[in-house]
């Protein structure tokens, strides 16, 4: 079920919330049981068969986790804890691999090795990538002794909680379950109102901003690579437009998820923090899909770096130090783990060469960014003035780098991506509106690469509006910060910026009309083509 559907907003959401609020007054156990049941219904709605995949996997993972918990390190069974953990991780990855990568792998085999495997398209269970990562993190946490007790109900709630079930954020057991266990019996009306506001803002971002942008972009990406060449303005429209689309799509979804959780009285982790305002690519990944970055860092990057560091220490080689730069240490301890982590990130986003390329490109960006930081910190040339000067430059470089990578993420194939990227650097010529072409002197005055043609003005203006919102306006977390809408978000003291003060949400009558207006604008757009870009990841 999509959050932006009539069925969800008119039927599922009211029934679930009202049922939960009623049962919470009676018994917390009943209320949590209700949440699990409705979450399962939410998951089954799209494809009931999915339940037969997720339920056995939950039972199996829970059994493994109980064994990991109960098998004391010093007991006879203690020596099997690590093999059991590895088994659990492998089983989870195998399930993910089967559903997500079988088709890709067999197709690649047929292309590369000339084999003749029959390609059958496997239906991807909803949110399997998110759920798999969450379950793996849980097993590792239990194995590492970071969780001391958990019940089957808590585990089900942790996996199935419907706001974050199909597209994240990726949550940790220890940050979620204590909140459920400590739910007060009475509804916090302010929190509920903030949740409704956050949900509606997310709905608006998704339906009005992202989906409308998608309508303009699809024809450009479909036509790219067909031979005509995407001209300069259209190529930048495709790139910036998709950057805006995916940002508003995914952050809108995260807002809706956070809003729904807040209505229940639970705070999800922060997933977006105005990533397009980032002044470096490292900064970008600390703001974009934050929970995925944390997962990849904690469970892939850190272990790899740690292993590489230990290996070098054992061999007596130099390691990364704050005040010196060793190229070999940098490559082994930082660059290689970064590239591998981002390769995994690309593969996680989708089973396709372009997703892998996108991940590797971001890996390269990060390596360059880290190298730059290390060089500048070593040379000790950093000072306040320099930093102030570098921030806008860093912002522009980061933004353009992200926008370039987004073309690779969105393009249907390599030819289309190459076509748009060529267009972005002007190799496909510049098409300008006919009146401007004539005003500039036409054929006689203008070089050959400038041509007259149709440029859609509304999409260009729309991208500019979205850019202004994304780069200058406060984000939804800042708007609702007064109510700490997600974990770690706190209201800012003494906010000086007038726009931020104006947008400081309070559940007043005036805000009721503002949020109600956003709801009306969103619902008016229902029925058109719409799909969360991230919901099958």
């Amino acid at each position, binding site marked *: 079920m999509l959050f932006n559907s009539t069925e969800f907003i008119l039927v599922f959401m009211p029934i679930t919330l009202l049922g939960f609020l009623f049962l919470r007054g009676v018994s917390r156990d009943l209320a949590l049981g209700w949440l699990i049941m409705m979450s399962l219904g939410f998951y089954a709605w799209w494809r009931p068969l999915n339940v037969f995949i997720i339920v056995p996997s939950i039972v199996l993972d829970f059994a493994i986790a109980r064994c990991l918990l109960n098998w004391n390190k010093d007991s006879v069974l203690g020596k099997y804890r690590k093999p059991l953990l590895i088994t659990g991780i492998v089983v989870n990855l195998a399930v993910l691999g089967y559903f997500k990568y079988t088709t890709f792998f067999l197709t690649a085999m047929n292309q590369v090795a000339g084999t003749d495997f029959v390609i059958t398209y496997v239906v991807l269970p909803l949110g399997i990538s998110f759920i798999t990562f969450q379950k793996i993190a849980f097993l590792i946490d239990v194995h590492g002794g970071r969780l001391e007790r958990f019940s089957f109900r808590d585990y089900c709630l942790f996996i199935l909680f419907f706001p974050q079930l199909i597209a994240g954020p990726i949550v940790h057991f220890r940050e979620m379950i204590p909140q459920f266990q400590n739910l007060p019996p009475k509804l916090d009306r302010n929190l509920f109102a903030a949740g409704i506001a956050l949900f509606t803002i997310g709905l608006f971002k998704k339906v009005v901003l992202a989906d409308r942008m998608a309508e303009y972009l699809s024809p450009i990406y479909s036509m790219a690579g067909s031979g005509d060449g995407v001209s300069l303005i259209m190529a930048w429209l495709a790139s910036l437009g998709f950057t805006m689309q995916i940002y508003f799509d995914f952050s809108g979804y995260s807002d809706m998820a956070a809003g729904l959780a807040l209505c229940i009285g639970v705070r999800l982790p922060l997933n977006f923090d105005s990533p397009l305002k980032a002044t470096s690519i490292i900064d970008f990944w600390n703001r974009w899909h934050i929970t995925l970055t944390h997962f990849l860092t904690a469970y892939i990057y850190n272990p790899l770096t740690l292993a590489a560091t230990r290996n070098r220490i054992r061999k007596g080689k130099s390691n990364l130090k704050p005040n010196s730069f060793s190229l070999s240490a940098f490559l082994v301890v930082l660059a290689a783990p970064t590239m591998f982590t981002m390769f995994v990130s690309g593969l996680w986003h989708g089973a396709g060469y372009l997703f892998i390329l996108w991940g590797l490109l971001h890996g390269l960006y990060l390596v360059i960014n880290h190298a730059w930081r290390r060089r500048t910190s070593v040379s000790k040339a950093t000072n306040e003035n320099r930093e102030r000067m570098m921030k806008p430059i860093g912002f522009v470089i980061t933004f353009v780098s992200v926008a370039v990578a987004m073309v690779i993420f969105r393009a249907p194939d390599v030819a289309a991506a190459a076509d748009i990227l060529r267009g972005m650097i002007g190799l496909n010529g510049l098409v300008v509106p006919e009146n401007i072409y004539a005003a500039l002197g036409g054929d006689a005055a203008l070089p050959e690469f400038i041509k007259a043609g149709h440029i859609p003005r509304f999409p260009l203006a729309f991208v500019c509006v979205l850019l202004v919102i994304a780069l200058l306006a406060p984000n939804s977390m800042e708007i609702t910060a007064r109510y700490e809408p997600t974990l770690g978000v706190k209201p800012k003291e003494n906010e000086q910026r007038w726009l931020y003060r104006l947008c400081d949400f309070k559940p007043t009558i005036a*805000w009721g009309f503002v949020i109600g207006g956003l709801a009306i604008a969103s619902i008016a757009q229902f*029925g058109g083509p719409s799909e969360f870009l991230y919901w099958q990841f």
Partner: protein
Amino acid sequence: MNSKPVMFTAIVVLMMLCAFAYHLRTQGIFACNGSVYGQTRFLAYCNSLSYRDYDQGSFWHQLDESAYRHARQAQVLFIGNSKLQFALSTQATSDWFAQRSTSHFLFGFAHNETVRFFSPVLAAMKPQARVIVIHVDRLFEDRLTPPMTILANDPGSRRIFRTKKVWQRIHRPVCSFASELCGQNFGLHRNMENGHWLFTGTQGRLDQPVPTGDGPPLEQERWPDRAQRARDFIAPLQADNRCVLLILIPSQKTRREEALYIADALNLPLISPDVEGLETFDRNHLDEASATRWSTALFETAGDMIEGCLSPQTSLDSEHSH
């Protein structure tokens, strides 16, 4: 300003409900007439942003058991597009079959539905028809229609069409109780017993009817492929000694030459009675009067062949099936 969370929530919820009510009325199922369901019809199509096609999904996912059963058990099954539905959803058709105590089912679909849809549906349905009448117009093109795109590509398509079925259950009593709550957008209701369409709403008709005629041959280079697809489609249908008849219903630009080419390739006659003065209400579909005349003419022309096929002793089986 002071916080008034209850008031805030009430305002937002109220505005949302108003927006939904307006959206459902103008862009949802309530944009269409819902007072003609009766006991035997479902809403096959409603020209609104959020509803649109239900027809194909109903048969693909077997959502309306009665319609599916009648289609499977019909002795004469008509296959084709919306032109077939409009041309044959007439009293003349019903009367002809009623007089012979024979069941029939109009299995035509909007968007010029193609064999990409019909082949898997018929393979699953295993129709028991003794006679299959195929309207060849655009049936053998290799393309996915919008509803078929969902059916073929969206693993959650069953849920999409089931949701539309649920909405019909709300639409029916609401529109019966207060018809002013429902709009007059173009809508099509399918009779589950014989597949006939009932056209409702005030949209979709041109001010002046447009006469039928033959159009120029189009996409001739694709005709051989289409003929091959026709062979592949018809071969399993003929397997059980069934009669297969090809027909062509006229429109403003009837694709007669292509239809003749396909019939010739299949070595089957093309039945298309020549009726003077036929008119369409939208360039594509015969209006009610023309549909009555044309369907009457069809049964005058092909009635003997259909009856012959229905008779177990007939030699027509071998004539048309082999």
